[in-house]
């Protein structure tokens, strides 16, 4: 559905993208992760035909976006970082304008569809100016999908929203996944974990990883196992723990945690804990968070560059 081949983009002497390539099949949600200035928005603008690449090719449904921009753009719905809203317009008029720009036939049916799908019925006759940020974001998404595109490209769709609105937009993305291929750029890692099937990590204009969310943990194998004990460990228990496990153990109040290499160690640790403390209140295992993996990957790349 999306094919990005060896794309370079220079802003004067600055190389924003350095040979970015990836492809994406139908019906997936893919997250583009990267720190500020990594080239996320640039790649999205090139994919939508807003910016030309210095070199390389972008195809949407096998149509080159620069050779045949009109049919290629017909297949794309795009929500830029700042939703492109005419604030003085009413929601319905705005959606009609967006639909009429992109559709040859009558737009009324599609407008009522997106209004229902995005829960905009209560604000459809209000001026955009008077909407909350969450509703404005929804209107931005509605304009992107009003012409029923195959591909939705969403640049930071939850930026600036409160937690409730963020969850609403995430649920919406999961729902839209059924009918659209979705490409999301974000630096909110939990958003990627919760909505995407795959993640592309970009740093300094280069793709440094492309993985399914499940496989990302291979980048960092260590886990931590947390035990809660009924009382704060005594000095003797403390010494015993350090003699046995050394640097791998951390004590925080009545919580004792261990760094473990694999799951087999967990049962041995549980036994040791019961021996030392006479029992445990709870136990939990924490995988590396996406944040940790992301930081590790980007810092590894920085070290390699050095």
């Amino acid at each position: 559905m999306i094919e990005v081949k060896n794309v370079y983009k220079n802003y004067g002497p600055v190389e924003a993208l350095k040979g970015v390539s990836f492809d994406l099949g139908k019906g997936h949600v893919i997250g583009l992760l990267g720190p500020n200035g990594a080239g996320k928005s640039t790649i999205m603008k090139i994919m939508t035909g807003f910016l030309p690449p210095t070199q390389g090719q972008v195809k949407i449904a096998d149509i080159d976006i620069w050779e045949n921009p009109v049919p290629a753009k017909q297949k794309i719905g795009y929500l830029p970082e700042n939703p492109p809203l005419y604030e003085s317009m009413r929601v319905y008029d705005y959606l009609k304008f967006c639909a009429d720009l992109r559709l040859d036939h009558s737009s009324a049916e599609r407008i009522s569809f997106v209004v229902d799908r995005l829960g905009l019925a209560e604000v459809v006759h209000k001026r955009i100016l008077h909407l909350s940020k969450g509703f404005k974001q929804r209107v931005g998404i509605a304009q992107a999908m009003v012409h029923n595109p195959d591909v939705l490209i969403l640049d930071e769709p939850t930026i600036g929203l409160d937690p409730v609105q963020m969850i609403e937009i995430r649920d919406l993305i999961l729902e839209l996944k059924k009918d659209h291929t979705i490409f999301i750029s974000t630096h909110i890692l939990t958003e990627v974990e919760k909505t995407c099937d795959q993640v592309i990590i970009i740093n300094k204009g280069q793709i440094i990883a492309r993985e399914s969310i499940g496989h990302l943990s291979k980048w960092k194998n260590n886990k931590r196992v947390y035990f809660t004990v009924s009382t704060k460990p005594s000095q003797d228990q403390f010494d015993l723990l350090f003699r046995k496990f050394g640097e791998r153990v951390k004590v925080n109040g009545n919580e004792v945690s261990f760094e473990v290499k694999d799951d087999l160690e967990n049962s041995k640790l549980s036994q040791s804990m019961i021996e030392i403390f006479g029992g445990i209140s709870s136990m939990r295992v924490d995988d590396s968070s996406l944040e940790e993996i992301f930081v590790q990957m980007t810092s590894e790349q920085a070290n390699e560059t050095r």
Partner: protein
Amino acid sequence: MKPVKVIFKRDFFSRLKSPRLLVILSLCALFWSVIFINLTLTYQQSSILASQPGQTGLLNIHSQLMMSYFSWIVILLILVIPILIMGFISGERKSHTFELLMTAPIHPYQIIVGKFFAGWGLGLLLLACAFFFPMVLSFYVDMDVMAMLSSFLGFSLLVAVYVSMSLFASSLTHSPMVAVGLGFLLNLSLFLIAGFSWDATSALIADLLQQVDVMTKVNYLFMGEFHLSSIFGLFSVVVIFLFLSERMIQAERWQ
């Protein structure tokens, strides 16, 4: 042609509903009414004097009254049209809606043409205000209808030139206020070209300047002299500035 129509409708009607347009139209109508009444009274006195025995007789209303009034219309149009057009492209950039247009499945020239027609429509509304007073006068005195029609055509084309130039000015900047300043200077430059073409000593330069001299071409139409070459010349200027505007919005993506 559908995208042109859609963009025209949005830009024209959204401004038509804005209080700003109402204020601009009211102020212009007030200004022109004061000027027109003053010029009419002056013309009346001159006519009375001219009809005295031994004088030249009745004065030509078109050349004596209307031509003076037209110059006042032009003066206001030079300033007001850039104000009407200022946000057409620079405002889109400011509100991030430029991305919406440029990522829609339409050609950039369709954006420019749609916006041009919206601007021209607003300009014609201004003209309607300006021509309201001569129309009222025509119920009471005999006026040269053909000269008036030719003048209206001339003004319509002049408004089209000003709109295309102001649109180009708006395409050059992200700031609507800077767009007003640039549009005003561009519109004013037409007077300078007219001045240079009259004063040029070299025949070649004079000939060259006359080709691009919008004001002289418009003046022929104001005087009721209908030349196809004038119409074609004005139309060419409009096309050139629309082309430049389209190039500017395309060029911005490559910068």
